[in-house]
């Protein structure tokens, strides 16, 4: 355990120091991947710990991102109507856009909206004991609904182009390298905080209940717990994480469109957790970083072949290490413990 904690410290220290050893371009990529890692932590909580497979986290990510993007767009428009509204024939700013002129409202909404939506959805489904694959399908349907809505309401959301072309945040230019470094640190800090919170949560009593729900929900119910409450809580929490990640993503990438909350990105989010090891929070983080690094690296070096290579990488990981990268670490530890135990047993035999 002590070793593990040292590992975590080292990992986050390395992330914090990244601006000193990565180029500006690589740093912006890493910042983006850390946003994805935040989502992956949430996925690991609901899927790895509680057994809820959500294929709709793109929506929560997207909502968080759109909330932030609305603020950025208004700031970039400097009191005028956002450009896409002008050519869509909108004359006045819609009422629900107005509060987003205040950054604090936007940040609060980026967390609150996904959380509320997730709470509503999960309360209705879990209360009626809809679970397993049916829940996964429902979460996909939510994605389709939202993507269609955001594309259809071009005059309010920018349609397929989404929201882009921002200039400043809190008056600081988004294109300046210093702002980007500060945003990167903010992302790292958020990831560290969320990681610590999630670890606290899972190592306590709550974590045990969640795992129990995953393994035998009915037994948990017979023991007098109400699984719905726990499931709604953890699902909403993971949606909140996704919202935070979305807001940070927009700040660094400067772009959000319905495409990014669609079905494929939603499934990709699950893949990160799967590759890293869904039953390990750190595994999910590493999975998100490794998969996305591989994607960037392969597509830069083999523009014609990269999809095949990435697919092969994924197949290899799933076939050979179904517990993900974290599974490899665990079996390594298991071997060492076994060796140690054997060692002790022999020692005991020697004494006797």
């Amino acid at each position, binding site marked *: 355990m002590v070793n593990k904690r040292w590992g975590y410290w080292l990992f986050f220290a390395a992330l914090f120091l990244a601006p000193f050893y990565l180029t500006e371009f690589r740093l912006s990529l890493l910042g983006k991947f850390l946003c994805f890692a935040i989502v992956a932590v949430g996925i690991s909580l609901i899927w790895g710990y509680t057994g809820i497979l959500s294929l709709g986290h793109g929506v929560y990510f997207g909502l968080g991102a759109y909330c932030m993007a609305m603020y950025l767009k208004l700031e970039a428009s400097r009191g005028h109507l956002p450009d896409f509204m002008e050519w869509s*024939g909108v004359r006045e700013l819609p009422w629900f856009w107005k509060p987003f002129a205040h950054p604090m409202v936007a940040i609060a909404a980026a967390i609150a909206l996904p959380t509320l939506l997730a709470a509503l959805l999960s309360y209705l489904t879990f209360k009626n004991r809809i679970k397993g694959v049916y829940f996964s399908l429902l979460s996909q349907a939510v994605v389709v609904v939202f993507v269609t809505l955001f594309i259809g309401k071009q005059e309010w959301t920018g349609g397929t182009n989404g929201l882009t072309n921002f200039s400043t945040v809190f008056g600081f230019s988004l294109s300046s390298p210093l702002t980007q470094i500060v945003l990167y640190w903010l992302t790292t800090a958020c990831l560290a905080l969320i990681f610590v919170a999630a670890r606290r949560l899972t190592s306590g009593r709550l974590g045990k209940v969640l795992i129990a729900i995953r393994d035998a929900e009915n037994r948990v119910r017979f023991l007098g717990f109400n699984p719905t409450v726990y499931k709604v809580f953890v699902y909403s929490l993971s949606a909140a994480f996704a919202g935070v990640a979305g807001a940070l993503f927009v700040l660094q990438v400067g772009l959000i469109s319905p495409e990014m909350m669609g079905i494929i990105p939603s499934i990709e989010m699950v893949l990160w957790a799967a590759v890293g090891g869904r039953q390990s929070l750190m595994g999910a983080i590493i999975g998100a970083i490794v998969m996305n690094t591989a994607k960037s690296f392969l597509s830069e070096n083999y523009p014609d072949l990269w999809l095949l290579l990435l697919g092969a990488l994924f197949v290899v990981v799933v076939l050979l290490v179904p517990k993900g990268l974290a599974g490899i670490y665990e079996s390594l530890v298991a071997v060492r413990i076994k060796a140690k135990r054997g060692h002790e047993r022999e020692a005991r035999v020697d004494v006797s």
Partner: protein
Amino acid sequence: MFQMNRGKGVRMKPAFMWKLWLLLCVSVFALGGCAASSAVDQAKNENQNDSSSAGKEGDVVKVGILHSLSGTMAISEVSLRDAELMAIEEINASGGLLSKKIEPVVEDGASDWPTFAEKAKKLLQKDQVAAIFGGWTSASRKAMLPVVEQNHGLLWYPVQYEGMESSPNIFYTGATTNQQIVPAVSWLLKNRGKTFFLLGSDYVFPRTANKIIKAQLKAEGGQVVGEEYTPLGHTDYSTIISKIKQVKPAVVFNTLNGDSNVAFFKQLKDAGITPKDVTVMSVSIAEEEIRGIGPDVLAGHLAVWNYFQTTDTPENKAFVQKYKEKYGQDRVTDDPIEAAYTAVHLWAEAVKKAGSFDVDQVKKAAAGLEYKAPEGTVKIDGETQHLWKTVRIGEIQADGQFKELWNSGQPVKPDPYLKSYPWAKGLSE
């Protein structure tokens, strides 16, 4: 005891060894990739700092080519990459630019808009390219726009689009609305009838295009009898076709994109509607798409572009011949392919005129620049950075080629915000 331990305890199972190997491979791969590319970046940056004119040192100058080589847009965009590479090859064969060889850096936008932003950033910051040729969808252009503006790069965008944009760092070599949609609507009103049915895929281009068409019809005495949008990739058009049958419009103005066209035109033909009953005017169907949909179902319908493979200029004859020789006799050229090819040559001409690869100087030299492109003479409009282009309306023939029915006679001045049309006042400010 110590020896026994060695023998027994730390023996590993073969399966486990496998996993260990895998972990090693994956981590070496990922970390190595990350560290290596970072190290290479740094090394390159240092080199570039030494020679001060980054990306242009030695006897090569780098340019970026950024199209979707995978994903849904690959089918269209791969041809643009081919045309751009061919143009670069031509320039290199004739001695290069300012006595430097052009070195293309090809990146995959993967039909994914943040990827376009990421790769554009990479091309500008890491490779320090002198220009980027890329994009197809409006969303990909919108994603690249802030990146090229912030890094003060130069993007050449080769596809017709919905207008309402004019970035100081982008040159638009495809048509804007007043060089494609607006003249087509006027022509249809004069030659085919007053009732229009608007059909499009559900995204920005069709929605914006239809807003413009509606304003124009209102001003010029036409009438909209239906307006429908279907999601990208939609394939069931029976309801919409029965609506078309019911209202009997003179014209269906079609802004569908991609696969949907295959389904729509097949079902239209199956429903017994021929080009004689209803004219379908398309703005996204060129020779390349006709090849995919099949000329038999399309024959007799119309499309509006600035270039057809059959356009009769000496430059086009040479261009088509070269393209086919290089990429295969079964390949066809079309408007975006020609615009992509022209973009590279226009950039090269501007560089020659400026005597420099510097973005500001190239921009200054580009204003007013004329070039004999396969589509005829084009001119760069300095104010909007769009091209003056000739508008052409063509009828699709059974062999998959176009027969030109009408052209504007001379290049039309680009007007992306439709400022010169009084009826478009409400559309842009």
